[in-house]
């Protein structure tokens, strides 16, 4: 056996040129609780490029993966929400740093998977990196903007402060797998929520690559959980789940109304699809998206305290 292998190698060497390398193909898996498991169901589905060429197989997440993701997100919520806003900002900035180091990979991915021009792909990756920096800056400023001291008719100090709502299920934009995903994910976790995101079904590879960035950026496991799969299969379970506190319907498409109805049964906060939904990566290029994607996932805590003598 060994002899035969050697002789084949020498034969190839004799033809000139080094022996061919075996292709090292990546297994694209889910990102749950800081780990990269395959789908509990064992299923996967082929992912093709914009021109129809096979790129890789991605895990096809099941209802139970969604449940496990919610459990992981709930477990991570206590620690993540208790971090200081300043520290959360540092972690988000770290995501930008790590992403910056891998920008060539993400740009190439965007060209291959979505058929973007190299120029647009470069702009999209830059915008995605800048988005993390943008929300990293917001982490310790959102309380001043949304909270404050309220004038009340009595001898009391009255303060309001925004607090994270809890576990947020995010249906990421289907046609904007990197910048769109970043734009809906970063504001959710910036304020201390934890997220379960269903990524783009047709172009999920950028999300799994992003998960590798998140996993190496001091972001605690479970703060972000990424499920690759079909929105119609996963979203109803996430919408009806009583341990999900809020639902971002950006990538819900035609299901949005029905999902909002299901979410109402457990008083889940809902963010309806905005004007960016359906516009591709270009729709998310605005460098200053403001607080609009943070406020829907915050609760306002108001404290009364008697004025001293």
């Amino acid at each position: 056996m060994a002899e035969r292998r050697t002789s084949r190698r020498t034969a190839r060497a004799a033809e000139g040129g080094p022996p061919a390398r075996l292709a090292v193909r990546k297994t694209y898996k889910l990102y749950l609780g800081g780990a990269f498991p395959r789908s509990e169901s064992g299923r996967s589905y082929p992912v093709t490029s914009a021109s129809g060429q096979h790129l890789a197989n991605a895990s096809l997440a099941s209802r139970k993966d969604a449940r496990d993701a919610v459990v992981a997100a709930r477990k991570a919520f206590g620690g993540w929400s208790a971090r200081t806003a300043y520290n959360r900002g540092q972690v988000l900035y770290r995501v930008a740093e790590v992403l910056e180091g891998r920008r060539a990979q993400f740009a190439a991915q965007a060209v291959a998977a979505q058929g973007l021009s190299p120029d647009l792909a470069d702009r999209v990756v830059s915008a995605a990196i800048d988005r993390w920096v943008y929300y990293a800056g917001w982490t310790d400023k959102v309380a001043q903007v949304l909270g404050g001291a309220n004038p009340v008719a009595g001898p009391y100090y009255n303060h309001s402060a925004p607090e994270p709502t809890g576990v947020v299920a995010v249906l990421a934009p289907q046609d904007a797998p990197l910048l769109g995903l970043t734009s809906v994910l970063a504001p959710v976790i910036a304020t201390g929520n934890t997220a379960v995101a269903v990524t783009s079904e047709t172009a999920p590879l950028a999300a799994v690559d992003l998960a590798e960035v998140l996993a190496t950026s001091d972001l605690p496991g479970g703060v972000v959980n990424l499920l690759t799969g079909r929105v119609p299969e996963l979203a109803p379970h996430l919408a009806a789940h009583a341990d999900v506190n809020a639902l971002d319907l950006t990538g819900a498409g035609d299901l949005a109304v029905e999902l909002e109805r299901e979410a109402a049964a457990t008083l889940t906060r809902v963010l309806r699809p905005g004007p960016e939904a359906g516009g591709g990566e270009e729709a998310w290029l605005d460098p200053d998206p403001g607080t609009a994607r943070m406020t829907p996932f915050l609760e306002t805590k108001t404290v009364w305290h008697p004025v001293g003598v």
Partner: protein
Amino acid sequence: MPVPHTAFAPEATTNRELRAFLHGLPGVDEVGARARAQDLSTRSIKTTAKAEAIDLAISMVDLTTLEGADTPGKVRALCAKAAHPDPTDRTVPRVGAVCVYPDMVATAVEALRGTGIGVASVATAFPSGRAPMEVKLADTRRAVADGATEIDMVIDRGAFLSGDYLKVFEEIAAVKEACGTAHLKVILETGELVTYDNVRRASHLAIRAGGDFVKTSTGKVSPAATLPVTLVMLEAVRDHHADTGRRVGVKPAGGIRTTKDAIRNLVLVNEVAGPEWLTPDLFRIGASSLLNDLLMQRTRLSTGTYPGPDYYTLD
């Protein structure tokens, strides 16, 4: 190999005879026990079978609070939960018993009056068991006098590990006598027994000394109730039944937190000891957080949506 005959009534014996008996037991195939437990834990229990298993598991729960910070109020809240685990759904069965420290027995008995749910009390200087014999017996008598229907005693692991089997045997027999009509569960604290062979020996010793149940752990030592340990104990009660016709119960306690864990234990009981053991009279699960998970899975099965812990009591 059949296990030598063991009689129901604890008979007078000597350390020498006990040693010969316990060390004559066949050794446990450790790899085999782990593999069998692992194999059985992959059984798929779904839909109606799962619904039945959940209700059975709820009726087997010894709802436990054994904290230094226990208050009468907490014990009363736990008793209310024991009687009606889910106040919004009266079809949920009540739990097997409530398990508390001896000084909380009177409170629990008062709170459970009329529900038919028993009160189990840990006794004999739980959890270490390091106290003089008179103290252990007084502990037991007091709990029984206060109305405990079940006593969970701990064995003297130090004596067992040093080979003084007679001391362990006599202690169990004496506590059994002090129990009167109350059921006696003997806690082996398997996490401190080191080997599966010791678990098998301690199980047979406890059964022979008159224990009505053998229980894995106090819940204060890790590892607590692992599946292979429960497997070895179930084999011991099965062998004892084959030998004498007397059925002794098993109670894994500590570390069983999810419905999946509970169902794995039920599968183990069914496959190792047999379906006769699938009753709260012969199998209990000592747990505190397990009940909420069972209730959540029950809701999941009946409504089709996942419930959240916000909708259940904190206990």
